[in-house]
C-alpha cells in the first residue's frame, strides 16, 4: 500500500477537497485492510478478495473506497445507510471481517492533540493525523453473512414483478400477497407517484469518434419542454 500521505493526497483529489473526514477514511481503510491481511487491496490478486461495507455517505466513505479500490458497480462496495462513521472490511478468502468505528471522543480530543492549530476543521485535520489508531478507532471482530446474490460476478437470479413486469436482479424482489413484486411496487420505496413521461431530444445518440459534429447546443436548448 502507498504511504499515508500519498493516499490522502490522491483521495482528496478524487473526492474534491481535503477534510478531516478524508483523513479518517484513509486511516480507516489502511487499518481495515491490515486487520484482514490485505496489503495491496487494489492489486489484481487482492481486489477480488475484498468487500467493504460503509455505514455512512460522508467524506469518509469516499476515502475508504478510494484507498481500497472497492466500487459499487463491482459489488465490492456495500452502502448501509446507518448514519454511523464505521466500515466493515471482509476478506472473502478467509472469511475474516472487522468493523472499524471512528470514535466520537476523537472529536473532543482534537483540541489536545493539535492545540496550536486554530479553527475547528484545520484542528481536526491536524489532530486526526497525529492520533494513534487506538484513539481514532474502535474495532469489532464481526461475522458477515454473505449470500451468493451479494457477491461480485454474474447476475445470480432474475425475477419479474407480477404487477409492473419489471425485471429484478439478484434476489432484490419482494414477495407480497403470494406474488413477486419489485421494490417500487411495494410501499418500501424511496419515491412515490411514478408516471412515465416523454422528454426532449428523445432520439439523441452518442456520436462515434470522427463523425460529423452534433447539432448546436443552442438549438437543442430551444427544444426543452416542461415535463408534466
Amino acid at each position, binding site marked *: 500500500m502507498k504511504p499515508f500521505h500519498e493516499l490522502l493526497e490522491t483521495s482528496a483529489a478524487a473526492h474534491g477537497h481535503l477534510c478531516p473526514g478524508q483523513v479518517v477514511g484513509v486511516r480507516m481503510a489502511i487499518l481495515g485492510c491490515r486487520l484482514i491481511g490485505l496489503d495491496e487491496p487494489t492489486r489484481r490478486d487482492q481486489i477480488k478478495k475484498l468487500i467493504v461495507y460503509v455505514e455512512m455517505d460522508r467524506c469518509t466513505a469516499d476515502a475508504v473506497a478510494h484507498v481500497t479500490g472497492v466500487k459499487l458497480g463491482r459489488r465490492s462496495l456495500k452502502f448501509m445507510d446507518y448514519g454511523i462513521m464505521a466500515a466493515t472490511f471482509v476478506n472473502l478468502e478467509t472469511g475474516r471481517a472487522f468493523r472499524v468505528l471512528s470514535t466520537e471522543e476523537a472529536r*473532543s480530543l482534537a483540541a489536545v492533540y493539535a492545540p496550536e492549530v486554530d479553527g475547528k476543521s484545520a484542528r481536526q485535520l491536524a489532530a486526526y493525523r497525529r492520533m494513534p489508531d487506538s484513539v481514532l478507532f474502535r474495532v469489532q471482530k464481526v461475522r458477515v453473512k454473505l449470500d451468493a446474490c451479494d457477491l461480485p460476478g454474474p447476475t445470480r437470479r432474475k425475477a419479474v414483478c407480477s404487477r409492473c413486469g419489471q425485471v429484478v436482479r439478484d434476489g432484490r424482489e419482494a414477495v407480497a400477497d403470494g406474488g413477486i413484486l419489485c421494490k417500487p411496487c411495494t410501499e418500501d420505496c424511496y419515491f412515490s407517484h411514478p408516471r412515465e413521461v416523454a422528454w426532449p431530444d428523445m432520439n439523441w445518440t452518442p456520436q462515434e469518434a470522427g463523425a460529423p459534429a452534433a447539432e448546436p447546443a443552442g438549438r437543442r436548448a430551444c427544444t426543452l419542454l416542461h415535463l408534466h
Partner: protein
Amino acid sequence: MLKKIKVEEAIGTQLAHDITEIRPGEFKGPAFRKGHTVCDDDICHLQKLGKNHLYLLDLEEDEVHENQAAAILAGGLAGAGVVWENNPREGKISLHAAFDGLLTIDTAALAAFNMVEEVMCATLHSHTLVKKGELVAAMRAIPLVMKRAPVERAAAIARQNGGVVAVKPLRKARVGLVITGSEVYHGLIEDKFAPTLSRKVTELGSEVAGVTFAPDDEGRIADAIRRHLDSGCDLLLLSGGMSVDPDDVTRKAIRQAGAGEVHYGAAALPGAMFLTATIGEVPLLGVPACGLHHRVTVLDLVLPRILAGERIGRKELAFIGHGGLCRDCPACSYPHCPFGKGS
C-alpha cells in the same frame, strides 16, 4: 459476570473485591480484601458496612476483574522513571517516582485515556519537580468486571508515546552566568543577579562554573558567552539587557555569539521578556530584570525543563500562557500554587 447473593448465604464464598470501611476521621481502607473467604463472624461486620448482598464472580472469557484491569492499565500508563506495585487496593494502583526529577505528563494521551469509558487516571501537573518515591499518579478500572477489549485499548492509548506518566532526571549542568549592565559593571550599583541565579541553579543540583560581568556592549557580551562555551559550560544564563531600551543589547549579543534559534518573549508574568536560544547544543536563557524582584518567575518554570533535556522554543513559551500569571501573593506558596501549571 456477577451473581448477586444475600450476605447470609455467602458463608464459604470468596469476596469478589475489596470492601471499603470508612470511619470518619479515623480510618478509610479495605475492611476485607478480595479473595477473603466469608465466615460466620463476618456477616455482622458486613451488615454494619451496609452490605446486605455480595457478588459472586464468574468471569467470561472476554472479561477481566478490576484488579487485573488495573494492572494492565498501570503497565500502559507508567513510562520511564515511574514505578508501581501490582497490588491493587480497592481496584486502585498508584504510580511513584523512581528517582528525583521532573514529572512529565503526556496530556493528550491522558485525555484520550480518560475518554475511554470506565477507566480513570489522575496525575500531578506536568513539569512538577518530584522526589524519589513520591506519588505522581493513581488510576483505577471503575467497574468490578470489565470487558478486556476496552481495557487493552485504553492501555494502548496510554503507551502511545511510551507511557503517559514519566519522570525525567535532571542533568547536572556546568552553568556559565553572564551578568550584563553597565551600571553593575562599573560598580554604580551592587549586583543581585549572580547570587539569585546561582541559588536557583544549585538548588536543582547543577553548579555555577563561572560568572562574567559585561557592560551593555554587544561585542563584550558576545565575548563573555564564547568564553563560557570555550571553558566547557553546557548551559548559560544571561541577566539584564532583555528589555526594549536602546541600551538593552543582550539579544543582539546572543545572536552575534552564534545563536541560531532565538525565541524572545514568554507568555508568563513575571517573565514576558524572557529569551531562549541555543548555540550548538548549549541552551542559553535570557533572564529579564523581573528575576531580581520576584521570588518566582518564568525561569523557575523553564530551568527544570531545560535540565530535563527539553528544548524550549516558541511553542513551549506560548503554552505557558494558561496559568502563567503569578498572583503575586503576600506570602508566596510556589510550587503549591497555579503558577505555570496550565501548560
